[in-house]
């Protein structure tokens, strides 16, 4: 059973460019969340997708956008890259179920290391 996978592993971009990161959730999971983890810090929530819609969003500018596909995989797009966007970007998947749409434990992918020069 494949866990959460992310691509690419590493990425180097220059300021002002745009980047797309990809995530495939763990088998059986339908909800994907994205996090930014700066060096030496804990992950910061960017947004969460369920049923191809953004359900929750953290304190990130509109330069950060996302998408979820019918097969539950997801993309994170960042436009007009800044030096401060350099970080490890983590994808986490979980299963949302029940009438209350409760979401269980998240499982994380290995991350994409983005460096902005």
């Amino acid at each position, binding site marked *: 059973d494949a866990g959460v996978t992310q691509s690419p592993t590493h990425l180097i971009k220059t300021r002002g460019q745009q980047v797309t990161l990809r995530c495939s959730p763990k088998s059986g999971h339908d909800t994907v*969340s994205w996090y930014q983890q700066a060096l030496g810090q804990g*992950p910061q*929530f960017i947004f969460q997708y369920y049923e191809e819609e953004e359900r929750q969003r953290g304190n990130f500018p509109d330069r950060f956008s996302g998408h979820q596909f019918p097969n539950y995989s997801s993309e994170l797009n960042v436009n007009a890259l800044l030096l401060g966007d350099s970080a490890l970007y983590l994808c986490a998947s979980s299963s949302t179920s029940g009438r209350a749409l*409760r979401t269980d*434990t998240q499982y*994380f992918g*290995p991350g994409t290391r983005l460096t902005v020069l």
Partner: protein
Amino acid sequence: AQTVTQSQPEMSVQEAETVTLSCTYDTSESDYYLFWYKQPPSRQMILVIRQEAYKQQNATENRFSVNFQKAAKSFSLKISDSQLGDAAMYFCAYRSANNFNKFYFGSGTKLNVKP
């Protein structure tokens, strides 16, 4: 907004000994989950243990156990019989039980294990 605080940036433990990592959180909610995640140098975040706030019994997973004090909003992780492979960053995380709620992570504790 919820906050999670880990006041120990770094800790060391001798192999085979016991260490406790601290975590406090702030919330006005009554129904939530708490987690400890481990992030080894290879960077993939791994779930260590999970606690549901409505359960009074402390969660245990092999050598890992928690001390959950709901009134004090404290959630510490005890690692018994420490092994070299336990060396990693440990993150405490909070999640509301409400719909689609995000995780709030602490800043992490780096655990060193000495042979």
